[in-house]
C-alpha cells in the first residue's frame, strides 16, 4: 500500500458506514474537498449539510441531528473545529452527551505552508479535558478508517484527529479499533517509546536505529489518548524503566502529558516528552517542519539515549 493521509479515510469510510446501515449525517463548514467529506456529499447528499464558513453552527447543527437520533460527524480543520467551537463542543455536545463525532483534518504542523495560524497543536489538550469526550489519534490511513468505524458504533462524543500529509502504513487490512487500547507495535526492554499519530512511524524508525546501537526500544501506539490505556503503559514502563513520549502536538497537555499523569501515579519512571515546545507553528514543508520542531526519528532516538 502506498502512503496515504489519514484524512483520506474520512469521506469514504462514512459512505461505507451508511451502506452498512448506520444512520449517519455529516456537517461540513466549507472544507469538504480538503477534508474529503465531499465524497460523502456526492454519495448521500440528503445526509450532508454544508453550513458555510460557520464552525460554531456546524457543531450546533450536528448536535441537533444527534438529538434527532442520527450519528453526526463534523468536518473542518482541527484548528477551527476545536478552538473556535470550544464552547459549543463543551456545553452542547459533551454536556448533553450527544452522538457527535468531531473528525477534523489538517491537525498538527504537517499542515505545512499554511503556517502557524492553521497548525493546530493544542487540540488534544483541549479535547481530552472535556468530560465524556473520547480522543483518538490514528497513526495511518487504515487505523483512521477503524477509528471512524469505532466512533460510529460507540455512543457519545468523539474527537478523531486526522492529518493532511501522507503517512506510511502501520496496520494491516482489517485492523479494528478498540477504544481505550494502546498497541505494542515492537517489543523492547531498555526504553519505552509511546507515540501517537504522525509520530508512530517515526518511533518505529527510532527503535530500528536504536537497535543498531544495541538499545532495545519498545514502541507503543497510544492510539486512544482518552480513555488512556494505563495497563499497557504501566506494564511497559515497569519493564523498561524509561519512557519517551512523541507527538505532533504541544508538549503541554497532549498525549505526553496524559501518559505522564497516569505513570506518575502508578509507575513513575524517568520520562522525556518529544513534541512541539510551547510555541506556535510556522510555514514550511512538512518534512522541514518535522526537523525544525524536533519531531523526527533522530530526535526520538536522542531523547531515548538521554534516559540511558
Amino acid at each position: 500500500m502506498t502512503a496515504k493521509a489519514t484524512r483520506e479515510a474520512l469521506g469514504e469510510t462514512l459512505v461505507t458506514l451508511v451502506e452498512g446501515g448506520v444512520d449517519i449525517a455529516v456537517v461540513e463548514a466549507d472544507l469538504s474537498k480538503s477534508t474529503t467529506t465531499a465524497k460523502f456529499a456526492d454519495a448521500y447528499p440528503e445526509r450532508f449539510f454544508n453550513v458555510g464558513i460557520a464552525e460554531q453552527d456546524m457543531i450546533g447543527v450536528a448536535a441537533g441531528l444527534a438529538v434527532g437520533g442520527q450519528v453526526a460527524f463534523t468536518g473542518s480543520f482541527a484548528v477551527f473545529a476545536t478552538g473556535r467551537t470550544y464552547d459549543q463542543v463543551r456545553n452542547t455536545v459533551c454536556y448533553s452527551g450527544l452522538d457527535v463525532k468531531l473528525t477534523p483534518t489538517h491537525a498538527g504542523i504537517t499542515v505545512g505552508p499554511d503556517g502557524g495560524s492553521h497548525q493546530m497543536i493544542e487540540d488534544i489538550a483541549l479535547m481530552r479535558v472535556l468530560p465524556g469526550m473520547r480522543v483518538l489519534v490514528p497513526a495511518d490511513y487504515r487505523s483512521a478508517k477503524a477509528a471512524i468505524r469505532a466512533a460510529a458504533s460507540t455512543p457519545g462524543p468523539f474527537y478523531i484527529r486526522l492529518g493532511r500529509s501522507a503517512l506510511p502504513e502501520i496496520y494491516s487490512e482489517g485492523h479494528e479499533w478498540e477504544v481505550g487500547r494502546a498497541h505494542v507495535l515492537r517489543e523492547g526492554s531498555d526504553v519505552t517509546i509511546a507515540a501517537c499519530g504522525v509520530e508512530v512511524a517515526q518511533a518505529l524508525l527510532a527503535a530500528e536505529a536504536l537497535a543498531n546501537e544495541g538499545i532495545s526500544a519498545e514502541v507503543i501506539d497510544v492510539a486512544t489518548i482518552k480513555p488512556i490505556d494505563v495497563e499497557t503503559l504501566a506494564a511497559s514502563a515497569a519493564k523498561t524503566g524509561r519512557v519517551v513520549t512523541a507527538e505532533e502536538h504541544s508538549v503541554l497537555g497532549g498525549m505526553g502529558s496524559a501518559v505522564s499523569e497516569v505513570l506518575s501515579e502508578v509507575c513513575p519512571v524517568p520520562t522525556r516528552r518529544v513534541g512541539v515546545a510551547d510555541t506556535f507553528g510556522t510555514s514550511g514543508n512538512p518534512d522541514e517542519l518535522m526537523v525544525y520542531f524536533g519531531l523526527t526519528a533522530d530526535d526520538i532516538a536522542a531523547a531515548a539515549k538521554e534516559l540511558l
Partner: protein
Amino acid sequence: MTEGLSDTARMQASVATRVRAGALRMRRDIVEMIGAAGSGHPGGSLSAVDIVATLYLGGILRHKPDDPSWPERDRFILSKGHAAPVLYAALAEAGYFERTHLKTLRKLGSILQGHPDCKKTPGVEVSTGSLGQGLSVAAGLAAGLARAQDVRPAAYNTRTVFVLLGDGELQEGQVWEAAMFAAHQGLGNLVAIVDNNGLQIDGACNDVMSLGSLADKFTAFGWEVIEVDGHDVESLYAVLARARAHTAGPVAVLAHTVKGKGVSFMENEAGWHGKAPSDAQVAEALRELPIAEEKGIQ
C-alpha cells in the same frame, strides 16, 4: 399581523382559561422555586411564561408527558437556558415530573439544575445555558426530522421544532449563522420564538448593544416574521398555530414581553435578571399572583 386567521387557529375559550390558570401557577412556582434556591433568573423566566404555557398547556406542542421520548413529539428547545425555571414549571404542570421537585431547584442532587440538563430532567431535549447555541441545535434537529420524514413519510407526522431565544441572546453571532442555515435549508418545521423583553443583565438591550429591527433582520435572513403580544395567550396560540402550519420555511415569532411580568416590583427591571427574591419578596409576589382557583379560574 394576526388578522385573517381561520377559526381553526383560534384557541377555545375553555383552553384559554386553562392556559391562563396554568400560567398563573407557573409564575407562582417560578417565584417560589427561585426564592427557595436563593439564586436564579426570575425576570426572563416570568417574561416567557405565557409563551411556554401556550406551547405546553395550550395544545401547540404535540407531546406526551408520560412518554418523553415519544418519536412523534414536537420538540422544544430553551435556548435562553437561564430561564430554566419557566421550563421546569411547565414540565411539572404538564406532568413530566412531580411538583415536589420544584423546590429542589439548584440544590445538590436535584434533577433540576441551574440551567437545563437533558441528562437529568425528563422532557429536556438538549442541555442549554451558554447563549446563542439553541437555534443551531433546533435547526439541525429540524433538518434531521424533515429528512427522516422524506425517507420514511409513513412513519411520522410533521414534527415541528420550537426554540425560544432571548432578545439579548441575539447578540451572539452564532444565532445568525443558524438563521442563515435554517433559511438556506428551507426548514418549514422550525419556529423560533424571541422573548423580546428588551432587557439584559447590564441594562436595556439597545443601550448595551443595539439590536436594531429584529423583524427586518429576520426578514433579511429569509425568515417569515410574525409579531405578537407575548402575554396574550389567545394571540400567542393563533400565531404559533399559524407558524406551525407555515411549511415553506422557518418562522420567527417576535413575542413582545415584559421582563418580570406579573410581579410588579420585578417588571421592566434589569436588576431582576439574575437575582433571587427574599422570603418577604416571595410573599409579596405571591400576593400579586393569587391562586387561580381563588380567582374562579381553573
